[in-house]
Protein backbone atom coordinates (compact mmCIF):
# COMPACT_ATOMS: atom_id res chain seq x y z
CA UNK A 1 0.00 0.00 0.00
CA UNK A 2 1.75 3.05 -1.22
CA UNK A 3 -0.73 5.35 0.48
CA UNK A 4 0.04 3.98 3.89
CA UNK A 5 3.76 4.53 3.86
CA UNK A 6 4.84 6.39 6.95
CA UNK A 7 7.95 7.98 5.54
CA UNK A 8 7.82 10.05 2.42
CA UNK A 9 10.89 10.92 0.48
CA UNK A 10 11.13 14.64 -0.01
CA UNK A 11 9.93 15.09 -3.53
CA UNK A 12 10.99 18.25 -5.25
CA UNK A 13 9.09 19.90 -8.03
CA UNK A 14 5.38 20.35 -8.37
CA UNK A 15 3.31 19.29 -5.42
CA UNK A 16 0.39 20.75 -3.58
CA UNK A 17 -0.57 20.96 0.04
CA UNK A 18 -3.48 18.60 0.84
CA UNK A 19 -5.50 21.59 2.00
CA UNK A 20 -5.16 23.20 -1.41
CA UNK A 21 -6.30 19.96 -3.00
CA UNK A 22 -9.35 19.82 -0.76
CA UNK A 23 -10.12 23.44 -1.53
CA UNK A 24 -9.93 22.78 -5.27
CA UNK A 25 -12.10 19.72 -4.77
CA UNK A 26 -14.76 21.81 -3.06
CA UNK A 27 -14.52 24.40 -5.84
CA UNK A 28 -14.92 21.76 -8.54
CA UNK A 29 -17.80 20.05 -6.73
CA UNK A 30 -19.63 23.36 -6.29
CA UNK A 31 -18.85 24.78 -9.71
CA UNK A 32 -20.18 21.74 -11.54
CA UNK A 33 -23.67 22.55 -10.43
CA UNK A 34 -23.76 26.19 -11.36
CA UNK A 35 -25.74 26.74 -14.45
CA UNK A 36 -23.24 27.69 -17.07
CA UNK A 37 -21.97 27.76 -20.61
CA UNK A 38 -19.74 25.22 -22.22
CA UNK A 39 -16.60 27.28 -21.70
CA UNK A 40 -17.10 27.29 -17.95
CA UNK A 41 -17.62 23.54 -17.86
CA UNK A 42 -14.46 23.02 -19.86
CA UNK A 43 -12.56 25.25 -17.44
CA UNK A 44 -13.88 23.23 -14.50
CA UNK A 45 -12.88 19.98 -16.17
CA UNK A 46 -9.43 21.31 -17.01
CA UNK A 47 -8.48 21.67 -13.34
CA UNK A 48 -8.46 17.94 -12.52
CA UNK A 49 -7.13 17.13 -16.00
CA UNK A 50 -4.02 19.28 -15.61
CA UNK A 51 -3.50 18.06 -12.05
CA UNK A 52 -3.63 14.45 -13.25
CA UNK A 53 -0.96 15.24 -15.82
CA UNK A 54 1.28 16.77 -13.17
CA UNK A 55 0.93 13.60 -11.12
CA UNK A 56 1.76 11.42 -14.18
CA UNK A 57 -1.62 9.67 -14.15
CA UNK A 58 -1.73 9.68 -17.93
CA UNK A 59 -4.10 6.77 -18.34
CA UNK A 60 -6.82 8.26 -16.14
CA UNK A 61 -6.29 11.64 -17.79
CA UNK A 62 -6.74 10.24 -21.30
CA UNK A 63 -9.87 8.28 -20.38
CA UNK A 64 -11.33 11.36 -18.75
CA UNK A 65 -10.46 13.50 -21.76
CA UNK A 66 -12.13 11.10 -24.23
CA UNK A 67 -15.30 10.69 -22.15
CA UNK A 68 -15.63 14.40 -21.54
CA UNK A 69 -15.21 15.31 -25.21
CA UNK A 70 -17.73 12.62 -26.16
CA UNK A 71 -20.14 14.08 -23.60
CA UNK A 72 -19.73 17.58 -24.99
CA UNK A 73 -20.29 16.29 -28.52
CA UNK A 74 -23.50 14.44 -27.64
CA UNK A 75 -24.80 17.44 -25.74
CA UNK A 76 -24.17 19.66 -28.75
CA UNK A 77 -26.18 17.48 -31.13
CA UNK A 78 -28.76 16.42 -28.56
CA UNK A 79 -31.43 18.98 -29.30
CA UNK A 80 -31.39 18.34 -33.03
CA UNK A 81 -32.17 14.65 -32.65
CA UNK A 82 -35.30 13.25 -31.02
CA UNK A 83 -34.68 9.92 -29.38
CA UNK A 84 -37.26 7.51 -28.08
CA UNK A 85 -38.21 8.41 -24.51
CA UNK A 86 -36.34 5.65 -22.70
CA UNK A 87 -33.24 6.02 -24.85
CA UNK A 88 -33.36 9.76 -24.37
CA UNK A 89 -33.50 9.33 -20.63
CA UNK A 90 -30.47 7.08 -20.61
CA UNK A 91 -28.48 9.28 -22.96
CA UNK A 92 -29.30 12.43 -21.04
CA UNK A 93 -28.39 10.83 -17.77
CA UNK A 94 -25.10 9.45 -19.03
CA UNK A 95 -24.13 12.77 -20.56
CA UNK A 96 -25.13 14.58 -17.38
CA UNK A 97 -23.10 12.13 -15.35
CA UNK A 98 -20.01 12.59 -17.47
CA UNK A 99 -20.19 16.35 -17.74
CA UNK A 100 -21.31 17.14 -14.21
CA UNK A 101 -19.91 14.45 -11.97
CA UNK A 102 -16.78 13.17 -13.63
CA UNK A 103 -14.64 16.24 -12.86
CA UNK A 104 -15.25 15.63 -9.15
CA UNK A 105 -14.66 11.88 -9.45
CA UNK A 106 -11.41 12.42 -11.32
CA UNK A 107 -10.36 15.04 -8.81
CA UNK A 108 -10.97 12.42 -6.12
CA UNK A 109 -8.82 9.92 -8.01
CA UNK A 110 -6.05 12.50 -8.18
CA UNK A 111 -6.26 13.35 -4.48
CA UNK A 112 -6.24 9.73 -3.33
CA UNK A 113 -3.32 8.83 -5.57
CA UNK A 114 -1.18 11.88 -4.84
CA UNK A 115 -1.70 12.20 -1.10
CA UNK A 116 -0.23 9.85 1.46
CA UNK A 117 -2.31 8.99 4.51
CA UNK A 118 0.00 10.76 6.92
CA UNK A 119 0.12 13.89 4.78
CA UNK A 120 -3.66 13.92 4.70
CA UNK A 121 -4.07 13.38 8.44
CA UNK A 122 -1.50 16.04 9.29
CA UNK A 123 -3.18 18.54 7.01
CA UNK A 124 -6.62 17.80 8.41
CA UNK A 125 -5.19 18.11 11.91
CA UNK A 126 -3.84 21.56 11.05
CA UNK A 127 -7.37 22.48 9.99
CA UNK A 128 -8.43 21.56 13.55
CA UNK A 129 -10.51 18.62 12.45
CA UNK A 130 -10.50 16.14 15.30
CA UNK A 131 -9.50 12.50 15.20
CA UNK A 132 -13.17 11.60 15.40
CA UNK A 133 -13.35 12.46 11.72
CA UNK A 134 -9.82 11.78 10.48
CA UNK A 135 -9.56 8.19 11.72
CA UNK A 136 -12.86 6.95 10.24
CA UNK A 137 -12.06 8.79 7.00
CA UNK A 138 -8.65 7.18 6.59
CA UNK A 139 -10.12 3.77 7.43
CA UNK A 140 -12.79 4.39 4.81
CA UNK A 141 -10.26 5.09 2.09
CA UNK A 142 -8.17 2.14 3.20
CA UNK A 143 -11.20 -0.14 2.87
CA UNK A 144 -12.73 0.69 -0.46
CA UNK A 145 -9.94 -0.99 -2.50
CA UNK A 146 -9.95 -3.96 -0.11
CA UNK A 147 -13.67 -4.39 -0.64
CA UNK A 148 -13.18 -4.42 -4.40
CA UNK A 149 -10.53 -7.14 -4.15
CA UNK A 150 -12.57 -9.28 -1.80
CA UNK A 151 -15.68 -8.84 -3.92
CA UNK A 152 -13.83 -10.00 -7.03
CA UNK A 153 -12.55 -13.08 -5.20
CA UNK A 154 -16.03 -13.98 -3.96
CA UNK A 155 -17.44 -13.44 -7.44
CA UNK A 156 -14.97 -15.95 -8.86
CA UNK A 157 -15.78 -18.49 -6.18
CA UNK A 158 -19.51 -18.11 -6.68
CA UNK A 159 -19.30 -18.45 -10.44
CA UNK A 160 -18.60 -22.14 -9.92
CA UNK A 161 -21.96 -22.49 -8.25
CA UNK A 162 -23.68 -20.40 -10.91
CA UNK A 163 -24.50 -17.70 -8.44
CA UNK A 164 -24.08 -14.73 -10.73
CA UNK A 165 -26.22 -12.21 -12.51
CA UNK A 166 -28.17 -13.55 -15.47
CA UNK A 167 -27.94 -17.33 -15.10
CA UNK A 168 -30.99 -19.56 -14.92
CA UNK A 169 -30.35 -20.21 -11.28
CA UNK A 170 -30.31 -16.48 -10.59
CA UNK A 171 -33.79 -15.89 -11.96
CA UNK A 172 -35.19 -18.71 -9.85
CA UNK A 173 -34.08 -16.93 -6.71
CA UNK A 174 -32.70 -13.39 -7.15
CA UNK A 175 -32.43 -12.80 -3.41
CA UNK A 176 -29.79 -15.53 -3.23
CA UNK A 177 -27.43 -13.16 -4.99
CA UNK A 178 -27.52 -10.88 -1.98
CA UNK A 179 -27.08 -13.72 0.43
CA UNK A 180 -24.22 -15.45 -1.34
CA UNK A 181 -22.29 -12.45 -2.58
CA UNK A 182 -22.91 -9.78 -0.07
CA UNK A 183 -22.84 -11.60 3.25
CA UNK A 184 -19.47 -13.33 2.63
CA UNK A 185 -18.08 -9.96 1.62
CA UNK A 186 -19.25 -8.42 4.86
CA UNK A 187 -17.84 -11.27 6.91
CA UNK A 188 -14.40 -10.99 5.35
CA UNK A 189 -14.41 -7.20 5.63
CA UNK A 190 -15.29 -7.40 9.32
CA UNK A 191 -12.44 -9.87 9.89
CA UNK A 192 -9.97 -7.64 8.08
CA UNK A 193 -11.25 -4.70 10.10
CA UNK A 194 -10.61 -6.51 13.36
CA UNK A 195 -7.04 -7.22 12.29
CA UNK A 196 -6.63 -3.61 11.30
CA UNK A 197 -7.81 -2.26 14.63
CA UNK A 198 -5.54 -4.65 16.52
CA UNK A 199 -2.60 -3.50 14.42
CA UNK A 200 -3.46 0.16 14.87
CA UNK A 201 -3.89 -0.16 18.62
CA UNK A 202 -0.52 -1.84 19.10
CA UNK A 203 0.98 1.07 17.23
CA UNK A 204 -0.50 3.49 19.69
CA UNK A 205 -3.60 4.85 18.02
CA UNK A 206 -5.23 5.44 21.38
CA UNK A 207 -2.32 7.42 22.71
CA UNK A 208 -3.77 10.67 24.05
CA UNK A 209 -0.61 12.62 23.24
CA UNK A 210 -0.68 14.74 20.13
CA UNK A 211 0.44 12.86 17.04
CA UNK A 212 3.82 13.86 15.67
CA UNK A 213 4.79 13.55 12.08
CA UNK A 214 7.94 13.66 10.00
CA UNK A 215 6.05 14.47 6.84
CA UNK A 216 6.50 18.02 5.73
CA UNK A 217 3.19 19.71 5.06
CA UNK A 218 2.97 23.34 4.18
CA UNK A 219 1.90 25.83 1.58
CA UNK A 220 4.42 26.64 -1.13
CA UNK A 221 4.52 28.91 -4.12
CA UNK A 222 2.95 26.13 -6.20
CA UNK A 223 -0.25 26.33 -4.18
CA UNK A 224 -0.56 30.04 -4.78
CA UNK A 225 0.11 29.71 -8.51
CA UNK A 226 -2.36 26.84 -8.92
CA UNK A 227 -5.17 28.57 -7.06
CA UNK A 228 -4.56 31.81 -8.95
CA UNK A 229 -4.60 30.15 -12.37
CA UNK A 230 -7.66 28.05 -11.59
CA UNK A 231 -9.47 31.02 -10.09
CA UNK A 232 -8.85 33.37 -13.01
CA UNK A 233 -9.82 30.68 -15.52
CA UNK A 234 -13.10 30.05 -13.74
CA UNK A 235 -13.96 33.71 -13.24
CA UNK A 236 -13.15 34.70 -16.81
CA UNK A 237 -15.17 31.87 -18.34
CA UNK A 238 -18.07 32.43 -15.95
CA UNK A 239 -18.51 36.15 -16.45
CA UNK A 240 -17.05 36.94 -19.84
CA UNK A 241 -17.85 33.88 -21.86
CA UNK A 242 -18.11 34.39 -25.60
CA UNK A 243 -20.74 31.68 -25.90
Amino acid at each position, binding site marked *: MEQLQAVVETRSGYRLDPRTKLFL*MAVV*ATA*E*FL*YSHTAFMVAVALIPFVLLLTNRQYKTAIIFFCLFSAGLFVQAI*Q*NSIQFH*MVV*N*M*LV*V*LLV*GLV*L*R*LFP*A*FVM*GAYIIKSTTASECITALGRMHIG*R*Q*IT*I*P*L*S*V*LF*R*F*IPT*MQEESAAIKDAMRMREVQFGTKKFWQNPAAL*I*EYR*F*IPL*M*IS*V*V*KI*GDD*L*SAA*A*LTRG*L*DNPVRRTNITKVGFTGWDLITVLIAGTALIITYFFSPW
Partner: protein
Amino acid sequence: MENTNKLTGKDLINVGIYSAMTLVVFFVVGLLTALPVVYPFLFIIWPIVCGIPMMLYYTKIRKFGMLTITGIIGGIFFYLIGYGWIGLLGWFLGGLLSDIVLRIGGYQKFKVTVLSYACFCLGIMGCPANLWLAGDAYWENIHTSMGDQYANTLQSLMPSWMMYVGFALLFVGGILGALLGHKMLKKHFERAGIV
Protein backbone atom coordinates in the same frame (compact mmCIF):
# COMPACT_ATOMS: atom_id res chain seq x y z
CA MET B 1 -11.33 1.76 29.02
CA GLU B 2 -14.70 0.10 28.58
CA ASN B 3 -16.48 2.52 30.83
CA THR B 4 -15.42 5.79 29.27
CA ASN B 5 -17.92 7.63 27.18
CA LYS B 6 -15.24 8.99 24.90
CA LEU B 7 -14.79 7.25 21.59
CA THR B 8 -11.66 5.11 21.55
CA GLY B 9 -9.51 4.28 18.56
CA LYS B 10 -11.27 0.95 18.15
CA ASP B 11 -14.66 2.63 18.00
CA LEU B 12 -13.42 5.07 15.40
CA ILE B 13 -12.04 2.27 13.25
CA ASN B 14 -15.37 0.50 13.49
CA VAL B 15 -17.08 3.69 12.38
CA GLY B 16 -14.80 3.79 9.34
CA ILE B 17 -15.36 0.15 8.40
CA TYR B 18 -19.12 0.17 8.67
CA SER B 19 -19.50 3.57 7.06
CA ALA B 20 -17.45 2.29 4.12
CA MET B 21 -19.61 -0.80 3.84
CA THR B 22 -22.91 1.04 4.08
CA LEU B 23 -21.87 3.74 1.64
CA VAL B 24 -20.67 1.24 -0.94
CA VAL B 25 -23.93 -0.70 -0.69
CA PHE B 26 -25.91 2.51 -0.85
CA PHE B 27 -24.04 3.69 -3.90
CA VAL B 28 -24.37 0.41 -5.78
CA VAL B 29 -28.12 0.35 -5.14
CA GLY B 30 -28.28 4.04 -6.06
CA LEU B 31 -26.99 3.30 -9.55
CA LEU B 32 -30.51 2.07 -10.23
CA THR B 33 -31.58 5.71 -10.32
CA ALA B 34 -30.37 5.70 -13.91
CA LEU B 35 -34.00 4.89 -14.63
CA PRO B 36 -36.20 7.59 -13.09
CA VAL B 37 -39.12 5.16 -13.01
CA VAL B 38 -37.41 3.26 -10.21
CA TYR B 39 -36.89 6.43 -8.22
CA PRO B 40 -39.97 6.23 -5.94
CA PHE B 41 -39.23 2.60 -5.11
CA LEU B 42 -35.72 3.42 -4.00
CA PHE B 43 -37.11 4.90 -0.81
CA ILE B 44 -38.01 1.41 0.21
CA ILE B 45 -35.15 -0.51 -1.43
CA TRP B 46 -32.37 1.60 0.07
CA PRO B 47 -33.27 1.16 3.72
CA ILE B 48 -33.95 -2.56 3.32
CA VAL B 49 -30.64 -3.42 1.67
CA CYS B 50 -28.59 -1.12 3.87
CA GLY B 51 -30.25 -2.74 6.87
CA ILE B 52 -27.88 -5.70 6.69
CA PRO B 53 -24.58 -3.84 7.23
CA MET B 54 -26.21 -1.38 9.59
CA MET B 55 -27.57 -4.09 11.88
CA LEU B 56 -24.08 -5.52 12.12
CA TYR B 57 -22.86 -2.00 12.89
CA TYR B 58 -25.44 -1.63 15.66
CA THR B 59 -24.02 -4.64 17.49
CA LYS B 60 -20.79 -2.64 17.93
CA ILE B 61 -22.32 0.64 19.05
CA ARG B 62 -22.15 1.34 22.73
CA LYS B 63 -21.38 5.04 22.76
CA PHE B 64 -22.92 8.28 21.70
CA GLY B 65 -21.59 9.85 18.53
CA MET B 66 -20.72 6.95 16.28
CA LEU B 67 -23.82 7.25 14.14
CA THR B 68 -23.43 11.02 13.94
CA ILE B 69 -19.94 10.55 12.51
CA THR B 70 -21.27 8.06 9.99
CA GLY B 71 -23.89 10.64 9.06
CA ILE B 72 -21.28 13.37 8.62
CA ILE B 73 -19.03 11.17 6.47
CA GLY B 74 -21.96 10.06 4.34
CA GLY B 75 -23.03 13.68 4.05
CA ILE B 76 -19.59 14.84 2.89
CA PHE B 77 -19.58 12.06 0.33
CA PHE B 78 -22.97 13.08 -1.04
CA TYR B 79 -22.03 16.73 -0.98
CA LEU B 80 -19.09 15.95 -3.23
CA ILE B 81 -21.02 13.85 -5.70
CA GLY B 82 -23.48 16.62 -6.12
CA TYR B 83 -26.43 16.62 -3.77
CA GLY B 84 -25.35 19.96 -2.36
CA TRP B 85 -25.58 21.15 1.20
CA ILE B 86 -29.05 19.69 1.70
CA GLY B 87 -27.62 16.22 1.28
CA LEU B 88 -24.97 16.98 3.89
CA LEU B 89 -27.50 18.42 6.32
CA GLY B 90 -29.96 15.56 5.84
CA TRP B 91 -27.42 12.86 6.55
CA PHE B 92 -26.03 14.71 9.53
CA LEU B 93 -29.49 15.21 11.07
CA GLY B 94 -30.43 11.59 10.41
CA GLY B 95 -27.28 10.39 12.16
CA LEU B 96 -27.79 12.74 15.10
CA LEU B 97 -31.43 11.76 15.51
CA SER B 98 -30.68 8.03 15.51
CA ASP B 99 -27.89 8.62 18.02
CA ILE B 100 -30.27 10.46 20.33
CA VAL B 101 -32.85 7.67 20.05
CA LEU B 102 -30.18 5.14 21.02
CA ARG B 103 -29.00 7.32 23.88
CA ILE B 104 -32.48 7.65 25.35
CA GLY B 105 -33.66 4.10 24.66
CA GLY B 106 -30.47 2.31 25.63
CA TYR B 107 -27.84 0.50 23.61
CA GLN B 108 -28.00 -3.11 22.43
CA LYS B 109 -31.77 -3.37 22.71
CA PHE B 110 -33.46 -4.77 19.65
CA LYS B 111 -36.57 -2.57 19.65
CA VAL B 112 -34.60 0.63 20.20
CA THR B 113 -32.21 -0.42 17.46
CA VAL B 114 -35.05 -0.85 14.97
CA LEU B 115 -36.45 2.57 15.79
CA SER B 116 -33.04 4.18 15.66
CA TYR B 117 -32.26 2.65 12.28
CA ALA B 118 -35.61 3.86 10.93
CA CYS B 119 -34.65 7.37 12.09
CA PHE B 120 -31.26 7.05 10.42
CA CYS B 121 -33.01 6.21 7.17
CA LEU B 122 -34.99 9.45 7.34
CA GLY B 123 -31.68 11.18 6.72
CA ILE B 124 -31.51 9.60 3.27
CA MET B 125 -34.23 12.10 2.40
CA GLY B 126 -31.46 14.67 2.26
CA CYS B 127 -30.50 13.36 -1.17
CA PRO B 128 -33.69 13.93 -3.15
CA ALA B 129 -34.82 16.83 -0.91
CA ASN B 130 -33.27 19.24 -3.41
CA LEU B 131 -36.15 18.49 -5.74
CA TRP B 132 -38.60 20.18 -3.41
CA LEU B 133 -36.62 22.51 -1.20
CA ALA B 134 -34.19 24.16 -3.58
CA GLY B 135 -37.09 25.36 -5.67
CA ASP B 136 -37.31 26.59 -9.22
CA ALA B 137 -33.63 27.36 -9.71
CA TYR B 138 -32.79 23.71 -9.21
CA TRP B 139 -35.43 22.61 -11.68
CA GLU B 140 -34.19 25.11 -14.20
CA ASN B 141 -30.76 23.63 -13.75
CA ILE B 142 -32.10 20.14 -14.46
CA HIS B 143 -33.98 21.44 -17.49
CA THR B 144 -30.86 22.94 -19.01
CA SER B 145 -28.42 20.22 -18.03
CA MET B 146 -30.51 17.10 -18.54
CA GLY B 147 -32.93 18.23 -21.26
CA ASP B 148 -36.64 19.03 -21.04
CA GLN B 149 -37.82 15.50 -21.58
CA TYR B 150 -35.98 14.07 -18.61
CA ALA B 151 -36.97 16.95 -16.35
CA ASN B 152 -40.64 16.61 -17.19
CA THR B 153 -40.62 12.88 -16.53
CA LEU B 154 -38.91 13.45 -13.22
CA GLN B 155 -41.32 16.20 -12.28
CA SER B 156 -44.35 14.05 -13.01
CA LEU B 157 -42.94 11.26 -10.86
CA MET B 158 -42.03 13.57 -8.01
CA PRO B 159 -44.97 15.79 -7.05
CA SER B 160 -44.64 17.74 -3.83
CA TRP B 161 -46.70 15.33 -1.71
CA MET B 162 -44.12 12.72 -2.58
CA MET B 163 -41.91 14.22 0.10
CA TYR B 164 -44.18 13.14 2.94
CA VAL B 165 -44.79 9.78 1.35
CA GLY B 166 -41.02 9.50 1.00
CA PHE B 167 -40.52 10.01 4.72
CA ALA B 168 -43.15 7.40 5.52
CA LEU B 169 -41.68 4.93 3.05
CA LEU B 170 -38.19 5.45 4.42
CA PHE B 171 -39.41 4.88 7.95
CA VAL B 172 -41.27 1.69 7.03
CA GLY B 173 -38.36 0.58 4.90
CA GLY B 174 -36.05 1.22 7.83
CA ILE B 175 -38.10 -1.03 10.07
CA LEU B 176 -38.26 -3.77 7.43
CA GLY B 177 -34.54 -3.42 6.77
CA ALA B 178 -33.77 -3.71 10.45
CA LEU B 179 -35.83 -6.88 10.68
CA LEU B 180 -34.15 -8.35 7.60
CA GLY B 181 -30.75 -7.40 8.92
CA HIS B 182 -31.58 -8.97 12.25
CA LYS B 183 -32.61 -12.18 10.51
CA MET B 184 -29.39 -12.26 8.54
CA LEU B 185 -27.47 -11.58 11.71
CA LYS B 186 -29.06 -14.59 13.34
CA LYS B 187 -28.71 -16.79 10.28
CA HIS B 188 -25.17 -16.04 9.19
CA PHE B 189 -23.12 -13.82 11.41
CA GLU B 190 -23.76 -15.47 14.73
CA ARG B 191 -22.98 -18.83 13.19
CA ALA B 192 -19.77 -17.45 11.76
CA GLY B 193 -18.88 -16.19 15.21
CA ILE B 194 -18.66 -12.52 14.33
CA VAL B 195 -21.24 -10.94 16.56
